[in-house]
């Protein structure tokens, strides 16, 4: 269903959901998007820093997106993931999926998110207002979530 176009992008710049979705999923009946946003749970966070593996990340995202497209019969899909320093409230990443029916679009977006959480080479570090920097621990629940599929 999907052509071998690069539909995943890694960038430090922000992105705009509307721009990403221009012309997205033509002919599909269902479009699902997920956007992750920097959240300050402690009330003491200044920013989030995201490190990644430059040589590997974009290709891994494209490979995996194409596998998901084939598995769920997607008409179209996009992944945009940022790296670098992001302020609270800024969007971190987005996934968009388009399919004939909503179940496939929902499941594919959910699946890609599970994969991104624990298999895409990104590492988050929380920068506190007091200058402290703390790597975010991987959650066991993310691993469990991936085993659902």
């Amino acid at each position, binding site marked *: 269903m999907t052509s071998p176009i690069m539909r995943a992008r890694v960038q430090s710049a922000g992105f705009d959901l509307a721009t990403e979705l221009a012309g997205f999923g033509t002919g599909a009946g269902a479009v699902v998007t997920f956007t992750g946003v920097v959240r300050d749970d402690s009330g003491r966070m200044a920013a989030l820093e995201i490190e990644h593996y430059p040589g590997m990340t974009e290709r891994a995202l494209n490979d995996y997106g194409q596998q998901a497209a084939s598995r769920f019969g997607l008409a179209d899909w996009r992944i945009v993931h940022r790296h670098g320093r992001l302020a609270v409230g800024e969007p971190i990443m987005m996934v968009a999926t388009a399919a004939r029916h909503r179940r496939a679009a929902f499941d594919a977006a959910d699946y890609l998110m599970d994969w991104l*959480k624990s298999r895409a080479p990104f590492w988050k570090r929380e920068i506190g207002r007091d200058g402290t920097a703390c790597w975010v621990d991987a959650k066991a629940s993310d691993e469990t979530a991936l085993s659902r599929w």
Partner: protein
Amino acid sequence: MTIDVLYFAWLRERIGTPREQVETSARTVRDLIAELAARDDWHAAAFADLGAVRCALDQQLSELDAALDGVREVAFFPPMTGG
């Protein structure tokens, strides 16, 4: 053989460099880790808990027991936290 070894996140911080070239005859990733950990305290600290270390061989996620035959680039990092 010569292998590029890359480190990310807190492994990079503990070892103090993002990248080094290593001359090795290690057959598996675990063998390579043993050699690296013996280098100095910083490497030893980075590889102290292998349950918290993941690796990629030539930019493909791999197991620590994987063989190094023909591999040019090995990356070590903690469990990923994307999304």
